[in-house]
């Protein structure tokens, strides 16, 4: 049986751990609010982008002028999986659920005879994927130093990806991130980025408003605008994924740390109970020793 001193030490250490998890939870809660605001603030831009893109893609549909980034290069032999995860751990199943989805997709694609490459954004995803797909990881971007994710961060990633596409390194790119539903629910999501996947809903609303108005004029020409717009759209999608991810990460960390704090509390209760019992037992034992010693005289 553990001595009183051992128990005291354990209680102290669990209490220290609890303080840390509690602090982490509160930090995550504060960061979550900011991340959530950022994710919401970025939504209008992405929506407008989608609707403009939808109307433009209608305009150039079927013509040869449509940029390859949008319609693809007609192959799907090499697949690039862009896996966005956090750079830090201690956030529950957040990282592993994104990686699991990416891994399942990779295995499925490989079974179909396709070549799979990984582009990792975030240290944790890289660490986990390295074990199984070490030589298939083509690049790693860490955002550890970045306090607040800016559009330029997303742009840099987009530039790297577009460059690879133009070099013909891959045919189809899919983005993996966790969609932020709420603090307790983050859904790992796969989103095809190249060739661009225009959402039907956006296309429909845009078509409706086009019918209502006069014919839209473009300056410069549609194809030129598209050539400018499509790479930008990729940056926007990555930016959105990063923001969603940031909010999800903080949400996941918050609930993970909340659980940890609660577990530590239970442990402290149990240990305190054991400590008190042991202490009482020892006092009783000492009393018996004294009394029986006195009786013997």
């Amino acid at each position, binding site marked *: 049986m553990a001595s009183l001193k051992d128990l005291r030490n354990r209680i102290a250490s669990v209490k220290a751990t609890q303080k840390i998890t509690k602090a982490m939870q509160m930090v995550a809660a504060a960061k979550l609010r900011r991340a959530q605001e950022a994710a919401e603030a970025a939504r209008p*831009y992405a929506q*407008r982008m989608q609707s403009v893109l939808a109307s*433009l893609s209608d305009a150039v549909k079927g013509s040869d002028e449509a940029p390859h980034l949008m319609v693809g290069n007609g192959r799907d032999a090499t697949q690039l999986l862009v896996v966005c995860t956090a750079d830090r751990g201690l956030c529950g199943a957040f990282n592993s659920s994104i990686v699991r989805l990416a891994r399942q997709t990779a295995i499925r694609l490989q079974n179909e005879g396709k070549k799979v490459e990984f582009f990792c954004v975030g240290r944790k995803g890289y660490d986990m994927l390295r074990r199984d797909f070490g030589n298939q990881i083509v690049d790693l971007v860490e955002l550890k130093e970045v306090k607040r994710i800016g*559009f330029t961060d997303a742009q840099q990633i987009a530039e790297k990806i577009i460059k690879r596409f133009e070099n013909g390194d891959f045919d189809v790119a899919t983005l993996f991130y966790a969609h932020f539903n709420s603090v307790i629910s983050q859904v790992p999501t796969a989103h095809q980025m190249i060739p661009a996947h225009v959402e039907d809903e956006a296309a429909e609303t845009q078509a409706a408003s086009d019918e209502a108005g006069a014919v*839209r004029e*473009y300056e410069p020409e549609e194809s030129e605008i598209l050539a400018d717009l499509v790479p930008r759209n990729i940056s926007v999608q990555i930016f959105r994924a990063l923001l969603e991810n940031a909010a999800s990460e903080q949400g996941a960390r918050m609930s993970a740390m909340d659980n940890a704090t609660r577990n530590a509390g239970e442990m402290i209760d149990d240990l305190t109970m054991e400590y008190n019992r042991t202490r009482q037992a020892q006092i009783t034992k000492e009393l018996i020793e004294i009394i029986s010693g006195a009786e013997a005289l």
Partner: protein
Amino acid sequence: MAASFHFELVSPERLLISEDVDAVLVPGSEGEFEVLAGHAPFLSTLRPGLMRVRGGSKPDRQIFVRGGFADTGPDGLTVLAEEAIPVEEIDRELIASQIADAEDDVKDAKDEATRDDAERHLEHLREVQRALGH
């Protein structure tokens, strides 16, 4: 009071302006154009430059925009800019650093077309710098 229309200025990070205004002067890639109420449906890319907004809740404003496009439709004007900073908040160093970047782009350009693009970009930025008066 001129007829007003709805104007939205959106950057990837946030929605900057969403209100009814009288007129907006937009630096389009093929020339500046002014949007008034009832403008024909029109979509244009932007060049780096100053956007002037008249009317609305505040006195006339100037906003530096870079990269993006303007979309005029039946519901008004929407400007999607990669970067949008009100002139009062502009950091002189920011423009200077963007000019330095653009100069590098010109130097690094491998073929004629990219160099032309980069030079045009640089020229627009210089224009903005002159417009700000330094």
